[in-house]
Every structure is written in C-alpha cells, then in structure tokens.
C-alpha cells in the first residue's frame, strides 16, 4: 500500500459525499422502524426499483437524471404504500420472526423478478453530470457525487421539518411514541402507518435519481445498499432520525477510507468490525436511548 495524504484527503471527501447518500437511504428505514417496529428487509430492493425507473427515463427516454426525481419519488411512495397495504399490514401484529421472513421473502422476489425482466446486466447511464469533475486542492470532487450529497442533505432537512412542524409529521411521531395514546387523541393509526411507510419508501426514489449519474443499476444493487442501511440504522440507534444521518456519514467515511488504505475487500471487514465493536459496547447504537 502506498500511503499519501492526498489519497487520505481524497478518501475523506469521497467518504463524506457517499455518506450523505447512505444517510438518505437509511432515514426512511429508520423512520419505518420507529413508527411500526418493522424492519423492511426489502428496503434495498425498493431502491433498486427506483434506480431502474431512473435508468430507463435517463438512458432510454433521454431525461435529465435529476428531473426523474419527480417520477421516482411518487412512484416509490406508491410502491411502498401498495406493498405495505397488501403484505405488511396484515402481519403487523404477528411475531417479529414472521415479519422478518415476509420482508426477506419480498426482497428475494423483487430481486429475482428484476433478474427475469432486466437480466443480470449492469447498466450505466452516462450523462453530462457523470463527467463533471473539479479540483479542490489535490482532491478530485465528482460533480454528480456533490449534487447527490447536497440533494440528500436537502431531503433530510425537508423530512425533518415535515416530521417536526406539520400536523401529519407530528401524528407520525406521536404514533411512534405511543400508538394507543395517538388513537385516543384522534389519530387514524392505520393511515399514519401507510403514510410513514410510503414516505420512508419515497426517500429511496430521491436517492435513486441522485445516484443514477454515478452508480450502476443491476438486480442485486439493493443487496449492498440494503445492508448498508441496516448497519447505519442500528449504529445510529433504531428509529433515531439524527442518529441515522450521522451514522450514514460515519459508514461512508469508513468505507471510503478503508478502501483507500486497506487491500482489496478488507475495507468491508473494517465497516462491519466497526459495527460489531459499537454493538458490543453500545448495543442501543451510538445515538440510541433517545428516540425521535
């Protein structure tokens, strides 16, 4: 390994930018868990669906990748709402093992459906943004990644505002904190679950469009990002909004610095070692104990 400060600086910048996307992918999962105590193991596959939509709109229909946000976001809200209503809602009161099996099953079904429909090809769509880079001292900043970071941050801020300041957002938080009490003040818990699941999924639509200029699309792309999201959510403290954002950045940095400093796939080892160490000493996650 050749060590240089330039390399490290590059890894840190890339890590932060990618970490922003990790954070965005994770907040929805964290919110869904916070509200209804369900971990959606098909979360990564929802992202995959979003990426295929964004890919076809950009590569085949010639759309600007960032314009596809206006399609992917509502589409993912719909996908989430439909899947919730048809499969997850009926098992909300079942033992958690059944729920895990169900969402894991969903993930396999979606992955394999994608394999059948889209084949195993790895698809990339090249746009002007893909090639737009600039230098920050010795560090190359990829324009598409910078846009993705800014877009993720804006989405997170918007979501935070929505949860804190609007009637519906407050109802979502109230339901997460005490479902029965929420029903007793007039909150329709069923609608609130549907809304929370839809919004949690819609964030993946935003993420998919932001990622399409620099990340490939394939039927198994959800595996990696799904796994990252679970790690981030647990690290940040299940159901903790701010925790998920910070943990997203931490994992982004770890992945990126690890990849620059360690040979081959050892960087993955670093990420999951960090995960295991944190869980050993703080099983509630870094920011656990306080829920949003």
């Amino acid at each position: 390994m050749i060590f240089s400060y330039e390399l490290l600086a590059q890894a840190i910048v890339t890590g932060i930018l990618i970490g922003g996307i990790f954070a965005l992918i994770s907040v929805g999962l964290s919110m869904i868990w916070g509200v209804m105590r369900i971990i959606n193991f098909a979360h990564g596959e929802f992202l995959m669906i979003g990426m295929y939509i964004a890919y076809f709109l950009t590569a085949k229909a010639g759309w600007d990748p960032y314009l596809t946000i206006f399609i992917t976001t509502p589409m993912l809200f719909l996908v989430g709402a439909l899947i919730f209503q048809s499969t997850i809602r009926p098992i909300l009161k079942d033992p958690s093992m059944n729920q895990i099996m169900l969402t894991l099953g969903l993930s396999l079904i979606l992955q394999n459906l994608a394999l059948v429909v889209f084949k195993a090809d790895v698809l990339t769509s090249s746009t002007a943004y893909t090639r737009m880079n600039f230098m920050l001292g010795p560090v190359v900043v990829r324009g598409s990644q910078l846009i993705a970071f800014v877009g993720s941050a804006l989405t997170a801020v918007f979501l935070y505002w929505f949860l804190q300041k609007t009637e519906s957002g407050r109802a979502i938080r109230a339901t997460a904190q005490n479902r029965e009490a929420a029903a007793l003040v007039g909150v329709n818990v069923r609608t609130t679950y549907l809304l929370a699941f839809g919004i949690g999924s819609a964030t993946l639509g935003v993420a998919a469009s932001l990622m399409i200029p620099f990340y490939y699309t394939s039927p198994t792309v959800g595996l990696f990002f799904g796994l990252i999201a679970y790690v981030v959510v647990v690290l940040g403290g299940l159901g903790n909004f701010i925790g998920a954002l910070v943990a997203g950045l931490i994992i982004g940095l770890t992945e990126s610095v690890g990849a620059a400093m360690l040979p081959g796939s050892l960087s993955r080892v670093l990420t999951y070692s960090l995960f295991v160490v944190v869980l050993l000493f703080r099983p509630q996650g870094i920011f656990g104990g306080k829920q949003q």
Partner: protein
Amino acid sequence: MLTVKDLKVQYGAFVALHGVSLSVTEGQVVSIVGANGAGKTTLINTISGLLRPTAGEISFEGRELARLESHTIASLGIVQVPEGRKLFPDMTVYENLLMGSYSKRAKQYRKESLEMVFHLFPRLEQRTKQLARTLSGGEQQMLAVGRAVMSKPRLMMFDEPSLGLAPLLVQSIFQTIRQLKEAGMTIMLVEQNVRQSLQISDYAYVLETGQIVLEGSGQAVLENEHTRKAYLGI
C-alpha cells in the same frame, strides 16, 4: 348523553364485563368505583374503542359507538385521561398539547383550549418547551389532563387519575376535576380512591368482578352499608 347497555367484554375465555349497564348525564360527574381487576379500565377502553365488546350497546347522543374505531370516537369528543398518562414522551409539553387538538373538531378551538389549559395549570405554561418525559409525576398528570382538555371534550373519562400520586397531588387532581365540573364538563371518573370520588360525584356505580352491584347518588353510595364495609373499612 352516554348510555351503556348490557355490555359484555371478553379477553379470550375470560369474561371481564358481564353485561354492564350505566348512563352518564350531561354536566354531571359519574364515578365507577371498585377494586383492582373489577373491570373499570376495561369499561373505559371499550367505550374508547380500544377494545371490542362481545355483546351490548354503547350509545353517545343516540349514536352507536361499539363498531367505531378509537380515532373516530375521539373525534366525537369522547376523550380519556388514560391510566399511566400515556404521554408522548419525546415530544415537548406544547407538542403534546397540540396533539390533544389533532382532530378536526378540536383544532378549531385550539387557541381557546390552550388558554383554558394554561389557566388550569399555570405550571405547564412555564414548561412548554420541556420534553414530556422530563416532567415530574404531578406535572405529567397535569399534561395528561391538559391534553384531554385540548380535545375540546364533550365527555371526559378519567382512568385512575390518582394512581401513584402523592397525597397532596391526589388532592389537587380532585380539585381539578371539581373545577372542570364547574366549567360545565361532563365527567366519567373511574377510581379506586372510593371516598374522594364519591364525594364529588352526582351519581355512582360500584363495579365488582365485571358487574354493577350497586348504584345511586354519590352520597347514597357513600352511605351504603356494603360500600362502607368493603371499601371504606368502617
């Protein structure tokens, strides 16, 4: 205003309420007293729609409630101050109060309800930005009552409001109930604190193992031989 007829509620094979009938008149305080496990909370939760009755009717101003969902019942103005308070712990005092007026009907009166709450509990006004879980037990009880008042209730149901409170705070919660009554509120009070409840009640029911065994004006039930022996230790 509220009429419960032959209400039967079961948890699996266990029958919690065996055909309970009672009614609450507008503007009155009606209490349901009884020991732990008599079915008092079951009764309140069934009226609120959290539990489904196996038989019987609950009607509120002529409208049948037994098939409605909790949030619909709440929006009609039937509000409970639940046992154990059930606040939203990670929300501020102010947000908890706002949640109280979540339903469309209550939202119209949000401002004046807020004034009424701060008039009843000036303490809460000083604590609006504090998280509910950081309040003392007494303040949490105030917030639970305040949140219910925010719902612009037509019928307020108190479930064991004195449970777990220090004697001085028990006095103040009964004082609050008196104040609400004077303001014209209709109140259903479920309590183990038999003497104090009966003293402020217009009408009372004694519930034992899921059945009403005695009813009458608060004074009459208080003076009844059975009540005195079983609940007042005289």
